[in-house]
Structures are given as C-alpha cells and as structure tokens.
C-alpha cells in the first residue's frame, strides 16, 4: 500500500479534473493555473511515466495535428488503482491535518 508523492498527487488531481482532455500541455497549464507553480513539460512526463509504471494511469496516442508539427498528443487517464491511490493519499492527509486548523490560526 503506497501513497502518492506531493507532485504525483497534483498531477493525478489534474488528470481527474481534465478528464478526457488530459495531455502534457493541459496538465501543465492546469497545475500552473491552480497552484502558480511553473513546471516543465519534462517534469510532467517524468511523473506521468512513473505513475504509468505503477499502474495508476494509462496513456494512448491521439491523432497528429498541424499546430504540433504533425505530432500526436499523448492522452492520460486515471485507472481504478490510481483512484484508490488518490483516495488513500487524501485520507492520510486529512487524517494528519484533522484538528490542526485551530493551531494554525494561533500561530
């Protein structure tokens, strides 16, 4: 039973949000728009490849498009194991954060 790393968690949540339109550019932009983090495409793909090896995501190639110089998009989607991993990580974080709101307000 393993948990997602911080960046893996962000990428997985971006995939869930983007649903059928999750590919390198859209994932990068989603993370940048919601967290303000300027991440490189390489970081996104390195994480996605690692998640695919773990069986948390699956990928497929789309059709080549002219604005991409005739290159295909690689679409990603979260698998059932991936959903389990997201929930497990969420539960762990929520459990750890429970009751800490008051402490933070006192700081």
């Amino acid at each position, binding site marked *: 039973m393993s948990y997602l790393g911080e960046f893996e968690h962000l990428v997985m949540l971006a995939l869930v949000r983007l649903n059928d339109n999750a590919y390198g550019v859209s994932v990068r932009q989603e993370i940048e728009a919601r967290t303000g983090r300027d991440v490189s*495409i390489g970081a996104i*793909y*390195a994480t996605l490849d690692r998640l695919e090896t773990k069986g948390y995501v699956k990928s497929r190639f789309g059709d080549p498009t002219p604005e991409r110089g005739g*290159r295909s*998009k690689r679409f990603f989607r979260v698998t059932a194991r991936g959903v389990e991993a997201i929930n497990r990580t969420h539960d762990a974080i929520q459990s750890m954060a429970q009751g800490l709101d008051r402490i933070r307000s006192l700081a």
Partner: protein
Amino acid sequence: MTSPPRFALWLIGLFSPDEAIPGDLLEEFSTVASNNGTRHARRWFWRQSGRTIAHLAWSQFRLAPWSTLATVLAGYLFVWLCVPPAIVKSAGVLLGRYPVYEYVSAPAFWWICDVLVGEVIAPMLVGLLVARLSKNREMLVTSLLVGAIVVVGGTTLLSFLWWPLGPHSTVLFWHTDHVVVLDVLIGLMLMPSAILMGGIVSRKGGRRRLSIA
C-alpha cells in the same frame, strides 16, 4: 509563421521517448508567441527545453541507475582498452596492402591513423555500441560517457601541464612538446564528439526502425 529554435527542438527529440513532448512544446510555443511575441517565445522554448531534458535524463537515470553506470564504465574501459589495438590493427592492414610510406611519411601516417581511427571511427563505434546496450537511454549513457572522458582527460592534461618540473620528472615532454599537448587537445574534442555521434546515430536509427514497424 514563427518557428521555435531548431537546435533546441532537435535536442528535445534526442532525449524524449516519443513525439508527444516535442509536440506539446511546439503547441505551447505557438500560444506563447501569439501572446508575448516571438523573442519571448524563443527564450521560453530554450528554457523549457533545458529543464525538460534535465528532467528526462534524471528520470531515465533513476529508472536504471546501476545498469546505466555499468554501461558507462564498460564504454569507458572499452575506449581505453580497444582503441589503441584498433589503431595498430588498422594501420597494419593498410601497410600490408598498400605502399603507404611511398606517399606519406611514417609520422604523418601514424598521426592520421591515430586521429581517424583512434579519435573518430573507434570512439564512434563505442558510442554506437553503448547506445545499443542501453535502449531508450541512448543519449543519457553517451552523454555520461563523454562527460567522464572529458573530466578525466581534461584533469589529466591540466595536471600534466601544471606538474612541477624536477630533475626526475617523467612528464617533462608535456611542458616542452606543444605538439603532444595539441594532439591531446584535439583528441579531447574529437573523441567526445565521435561518441556522441554514435549515440545520435543509434537513437535516430532506432526511431526509424520503430516508425517503420
């Protein structure tokens, strides 16, 4: 129509496992260029390319660190163990078949053999071989091998150049024979380029076979 830096795009293509990453960068380049202008977009592209290559190289290394290091070490040993015999062997073949010394002096012939075989052909074959041994990590392995050769070769050269002269110094010729120093410098430039070329040939060849299949 604005185009991204071709060299950066080519480099990305060498390190990325498929065409999706260069495609993503091209797509975003068009958006950045239309929003912020071509100059900004080209700078953005270079920055993204550098960071992307670093990430890809690191993730390729993390995937198989020991086999990567073993291949680099094998390549390194192969360069130093097999290149000198290759020079002698190829020179021997040429001398056996053709009256070489009638056309060119012995030192010039051996220098040409040393440069052509020892610093171009044999290292290129080593680059090709290590790249073949490390599928999908061709450029990482050849780059690490080149890095090792440049660091060790460069350090050795510098230490020889700065070695204090003494009555029993065995490295006196490094201080006096500039031709030797120049020869080593040429080797330090040619050999890494040839190894990288071998890696690139293997990478591009592998891609072509993949697309035909």
